[in-house]
């Protein structure tokens, strides 16, 4: 009996020994952490949800009834097309490495078709968890959803007047020649903007400014809608708009908190500021609506929430609660002014305010990141408010570079696609409606 007890004690002690040793010597090699991986899998799904149904419904509800299917189709086909583009070549171009003088500007073809990447390989990218990482494949998928939603944002600019075939060709070329390079510059460790110290946590420049400027260029080049009378055309389904905005808010938790690539304090901090910025911006817009028209509108509060989410995107992993409150309030005021006053003054038909909300919101967010970045969140980064004016200058530079490249390249792509494929829907197609003319479908029937 005594021998048995001693044996048990000794065996137990011996079996604990390796574990104890392991805890004393912490893992110094990158490995796949299951907790982080689980969260980022969910985050990836959340970002997918932002494109369809989130953005699809948000934009779909804002257009006229005869064009709603066209909007939904554009979002859906982008999900299909760009997902494939991403794994075939996009990821390699954006996050891969090329050699020689092009390395800071674009990746190579080493990872085309995800060649050489095993399912148990560890992601080369991490934020605050150097060793507790996610699988490489998961990082690729997570980034895929960003590559998908960015061109989808642009559709707001040319809604109700674009040919479907031209749109598909334009979108593919845009993903290849505008999104992938800019993603490389800002997010790849080789990228020149990254090396200069640009702070963009989840895509203020890469996603929102990029898409927003492209949207402005497309809106101007394609010209106004036939029925545009200098003001917004009433939305056909405001419940869709609200649902879409709610889905976007929900999915944005994955967009921002997921960009921490871990389920840690940084991720939760990003979650907090994302939520508060959205809430602040929504409330601010509702208040402005009230001040101007004595009534808070649903379209307004939905737009406000989205504007707040856009602006906090680059800042999510760098600012604290104060930053979130200020960013939310400021972006709402500026975007309201852009959408309600400036757009009418300049007379361009940015149908669904892709530039007014995403473009301008992204600019505000990227610049304010350079102000409110606080070492209390990530010790290595600080903004102008904490004595680092340099960061603000870098942000301004990155914003300018993005605007120039995205605008210029989009213009070139417009010219090319317009000439060889055709982009602008003609008067007849616009009058009948794109659902019928592009897809042979009618969204709502009064017959059975």
């Amino acid at each position: 009996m005594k021998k048995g007890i001693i044996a048990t004690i000794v065996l137990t002690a011996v079996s604990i020994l390796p574990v104890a040793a392991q805890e004393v010597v912490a893992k110094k090699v990158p490995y796949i952490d299951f907790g982080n991986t689980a969260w980022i899998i969910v985050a990836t799904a959340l970002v997918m949800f932002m494109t369809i149904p989130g953005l699809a419904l948000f934009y779909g509800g804002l257009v006229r009834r005869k064009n709603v299917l066209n909007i939904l189709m554009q979002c859906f086909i982008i999900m299909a097309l760009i997902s494939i583009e991403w794994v075939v070549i996009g990821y390699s171009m954006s996050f891969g490495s090329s050699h020689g003088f092009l390395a800071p500007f674009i990746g190579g073809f080493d990872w085309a078709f995800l060649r050489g990447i095993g399912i148990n390989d560890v992601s080369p990218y991490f934020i605050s968890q150097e060793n507790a990482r996610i699988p490489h494949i998961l990082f690729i998928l997570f980034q895929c959803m960003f590559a998908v939603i960015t061109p989808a944002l642009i559709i707001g600019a040319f809604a109700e007047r674009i040919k479907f075939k031209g749109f598909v060709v334009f979108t593919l070329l845009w993903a290849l020649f505008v999104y992938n390079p800019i993603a490389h510059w800002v997010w790849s460790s080789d990228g020149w903007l990254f090396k200069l110290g640009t702070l963009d946590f989840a895509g203020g420049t890469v996603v929102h400014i990029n898409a927003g400027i492209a949207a402005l260029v497309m809106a101007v080049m394609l010209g106004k809608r036939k029925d545009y009378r200098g003001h917004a055309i009433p939305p056909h389904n405001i419940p869709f708009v609200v649902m879409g905005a709610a889905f976007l808010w929900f999915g944005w938790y994955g967009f921002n908190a997921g960009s921490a690539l871990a389920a840690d304090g940084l991720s939760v901090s990003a979650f907090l500021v994302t939520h508060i910025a959205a809430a602040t911006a929504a409330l601010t817009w509702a208040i402005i609506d009230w001040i101007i028209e004595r009534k808070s509108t649903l379209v307004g509060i939905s737009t406000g929430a989205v504007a707040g989410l856009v602006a906090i995107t680059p800042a999510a992993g760098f600012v604290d609660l104060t930053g979130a409150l200020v960013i939310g309030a400021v972006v709402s005021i500026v975007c309201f002014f852009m959408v309600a006053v400036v757009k009418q003054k300049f007379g361009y038909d940015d149908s669904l305010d892709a530039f007014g909300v995403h473009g301008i919101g992204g600019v505000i967010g990227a610049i304010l990141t350079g102000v409110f970045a606080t070492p209390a969140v990530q010790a290595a980064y600080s903004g102008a408010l904490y004595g680092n004016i340099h960061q603000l200058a870098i942000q301004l530079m990155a914003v300018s570079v993005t605007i120039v490249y995205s605008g210029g390249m989009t213009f070139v792509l417009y010219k090319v696609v317009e000439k060889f494929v055709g982009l602008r829907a003609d008067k007849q197609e616009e009058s009948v409606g794109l659902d019928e003319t592009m897809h042979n479908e009618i969204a709502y029937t009064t017959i059975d």
Partner: protein
Amino acid sequence: MKKIEAIIRRSKFEEVKEALHDADIQWFSYWDITGAGKEREDMVVRGQVFESSYIQRRMLSIVVRDQNLEKTIKAIMDASRTGELGDGKIFVSDIEETYRIRNGQKGADSLY
């Protein structure tokens, strides 16, 4: 027999329905209708205020015997009038023949 087509405010519909019921007019069709008229409504979309001429109304279509024409029109008018611009219109036209589908009966009596 006469057909009465009345375009009234949607907010007045329940009152008109009750007034017609009180006048013993029970059978009619109605649908939502959008029109252009003298009235202008202010619409706001994303902070942009503009005048909309999308005027939403409700249309009723009632076929009555000649002797009930006056009381039907009076019921509709009294119930739907507010005195403001945009109260609506009533049109009266002649109906040549009426049939009840269930038993093929024709004539004014088939209205009820």
